[in-house]
């Protein structure tokens, strides 16, 4: 788990992201021996908050990159101080670009070295891409617009899943001078985008249902059934891959939780949609009128309910809201304890926000009576919030005369 490191450490530590590692920080995931260290729970979150954050995380077994490695697998534990110092600024500029060749290389890297979820996601994405191109080609050649629209829909979804995959990979990079908090927010962003897409999907399904209701046409599109069945199968495979996250309300403990959850919901919603289409055509063949409207409406409502919690949670993090897993009574208790401290006259601007699920950052302003007890009060405040799990706290003490 990335703590907010001083970006100064960037020049001292060996494993800073390298400028021409446009393939996005596979330093840490390349070595399977350290797979366990990717678990954020492994990283000692009980770092002493009272000491200045110079020496960060001696517990990190993260790997370092050989400076000149572009294609060769990363060499471990070698680094070059001088070059690092020169190149640290260029890193941020080059970080934004991902050339075509690099992305191809990156795909192979993911296949070789990604963690299990990433590999599964990659498999799913490739399946989806293959399927949708086939569908698009068939649809264009035979002139069936239904297939084409389905193919479009799939492609959109694929694009989103690729973004999720990219987020999974890129969020491992270490913080640098430009992204001082690291890249983990990417996971939250991708979860949010997925949730947004699902909301759009539910809305468009509702529109389709309305359309069917108004038009009252019930054409039997047999070819669509075949495509729906195939779609359903692919998506069910995806649900099975991510079955750990197949819940609506999930407690997010690690940053990747949100991303995986969003992927799972995406796939789940797609499969519900395909199932709904199949059901609708079956009902139509049974002679139930307005079957399409009913089924589409049901699916739309179901997807909406499915997605809302994720949307709210990821939106909350992006909106810099107070962390949901820390109860306000606990924070209030801390507040009261600080205020009741003998040296503190006033507490203001207590702001806590979640960088990613599980990593809370805070800042607080104190007004203190006497001059000399800054350090003691700071330590006291830090320890109070440390118990709540807030480790990154900036305490500003103003001496009130």
């Amino acid at each position: 788990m990335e703590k907010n490191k001083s970006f100064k450490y960037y020049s001292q530590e060996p494993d800073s992201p390298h400028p021409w590692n446009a393939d996005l920080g596979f330093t840490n995931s390349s070595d399977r021996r350290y797979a366990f260290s990717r678990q954020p729970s492994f990283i000692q979150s009980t770092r002493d908050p009272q000491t200045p954050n110079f020496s960060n995380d001696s517990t990190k077994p993260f790997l370092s990159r050989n400076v000149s490695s572009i294609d060769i697998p990363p060499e471990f534990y070698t680094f070059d101080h001088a070059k690092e110092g020169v190149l640290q600024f260029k890193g941020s500029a080059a970080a934004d670009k991902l050339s075509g060749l690099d992305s191809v290389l990156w795909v192979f890297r993911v296949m070789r070295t990604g963690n299990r979820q990433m590999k599964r996601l990659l498999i799913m994405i490739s399946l989806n891409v293959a399927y949708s191109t086939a569908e698009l080609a068939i649809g264009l050649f035979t002139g069936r617009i239904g297939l084409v629209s389905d193919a479009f829909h799939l492609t959109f979804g694929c694009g989103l899943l690729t973004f999720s995959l990219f987020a999974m990979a890129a969020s491992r990079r270490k913080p640098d001078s430009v992204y001082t908090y690291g890249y983990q927010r990417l996971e939250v962003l991708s979860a949010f985008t997925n949730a947004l897409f699902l909301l759009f999907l539910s809305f468009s399904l509702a529109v389709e249902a309305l359309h069917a209701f108004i038009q009252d046409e019930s054409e039997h599109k047999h070819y669509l059934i075949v495509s729906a069945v195939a779609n359903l199968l692919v998506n069910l495979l995806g649900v099975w891959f991510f079955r750990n996250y197949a819940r609506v309300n999930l407690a997010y403990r690690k940053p990747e939780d949100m991303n995986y959850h969003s992927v799972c919901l995406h796939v789940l919603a797609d499969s519900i949609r395909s199932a709904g289409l199949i059901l609708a055509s079956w009902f139509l063949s049974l002679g139930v009128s307005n079957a399409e409207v009913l089924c589409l409406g049901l699916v739309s409502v179901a997807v909406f309910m499915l997605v809302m919690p994720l949307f709210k949670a990821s939106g909350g993090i992006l909106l810099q809201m107070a962390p949901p897993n820390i109860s306000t009574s606990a924070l209030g208790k801390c507040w009261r304890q600080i205020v009741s401290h003998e040296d503190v006259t006033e507490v203001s601007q207590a702001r806590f926000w979640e960088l990613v699920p599980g990593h809370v950052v805070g800042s607080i302003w104190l007004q203190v009576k006497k001059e000399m007890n800054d350090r003691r009060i700071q330590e006291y405040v830090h320890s109070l919030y440390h118990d709540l799990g807030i480790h990154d706290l900036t305490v500003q003490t103003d001496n009130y005369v």
Partner: protein
Amino acid sequence: MDHEKDPILRFKDQMKIELPLVSEENTVILIPVDSKCFSVSTSLQENIDLESKERQKSALLPVESKCFYVSSSLQENITLESKERQKSATQLSGLIIFYLMVILVEIIGGMKANSLAVLTDAAHLLTDVAGFSISLFTVWASAWKATSYHSFGFSRLEVLGALISVQLIWLISVLLIYESLDRLLHDKKEVNGALMFAVAAFGFVINLIIVLWLGHDHSHHVFGDDHHHHHHHHHHHEHHHDHDSNKPCDLGKEDETSLVPSSTKKKILNINLQGAYLHVMTDLIQSVGVMIAGGVIWLKPKWLIIDLLCTLVFSTLALSTTLPMLRVVFDILMGRTPRNINIEILESGIKGIDGVEDVHDLHVWAITVGKLVLSCHVVAKPGAESREIISKIRDYCERTYKIHQITVQIE
């Protein structure tokens, strides 16, 4: 009980937060009674009076033995922001009303002429209206006061609203491509080129009017790094006009603000309007494409494929105009150091302040375009007065970089 509901914000805090009214800037520093204190509070009253329209006036500063100093750039921002917010709100409402009228016209015309093309165009305009309403909502919402759950206020909503707006644009472009494919596959017999051309021309004219109207007020280069000198002068004039009483803090401010690209001032206004502007711009580009396709089909009714090609080309063009906006949104949501700030220079600047031995854990990020937050840990030289260090750092950051939310931990 009030205390139970808002355990984090105490009453005193409420007052302080109502002060900036944008619910963010509480850069209140404690300094001993000084000439600065006196001169500032008067202009502060002026500014608060200026904004008394929508918000309640609260008892502003507790008149105690403490003296509160609010930086002048903060006051500027408060008044400027509320004025610009009202202006944006009126512009957006005007846009929405205008578009609704156009939609009504198109629906009536489309039903009379029984033309699907016109009706679908009306549907597209409806999504534009949705985008505008989102922007309008975020303009209104970003004025809400901070609560204990939203301790930074609601300004971030602007950024999320802009993101959703841009997603809507992408959705529309994909829909357009899909529709042109539909036309290609289904209406092979007759595509009425003249009708296409007419509808697209109508849309083009309307969008052009709006682009000119919107573009008249703000610059297109909001997201570039250019410096707009006339904006810079505008900034100067406002500055002099509002704060004649703040002579002490005027000193040295002018030359230092030049370090900040003056486009940041305009940036504060426009992420909402920019979202709306993008909607109109993409519509414009796509109308051009449809016009070309309609014209070609009118002249040569056999070349149906040109419809698809034009749509593809112009949709990509239109989507590429949304990319700068997406970059800004992405930067802000990722907590990236704002692009106009070189963090190395900032760090060395802080280190250069006397009393500061070292800086670490420095984070600068933006709540929304133009609102920056900084937090750092500073190792003080032994014997240095922490209060002075804090106020010096604060001055430095506010003057040079326009960062108003600053938290410094002295170690």
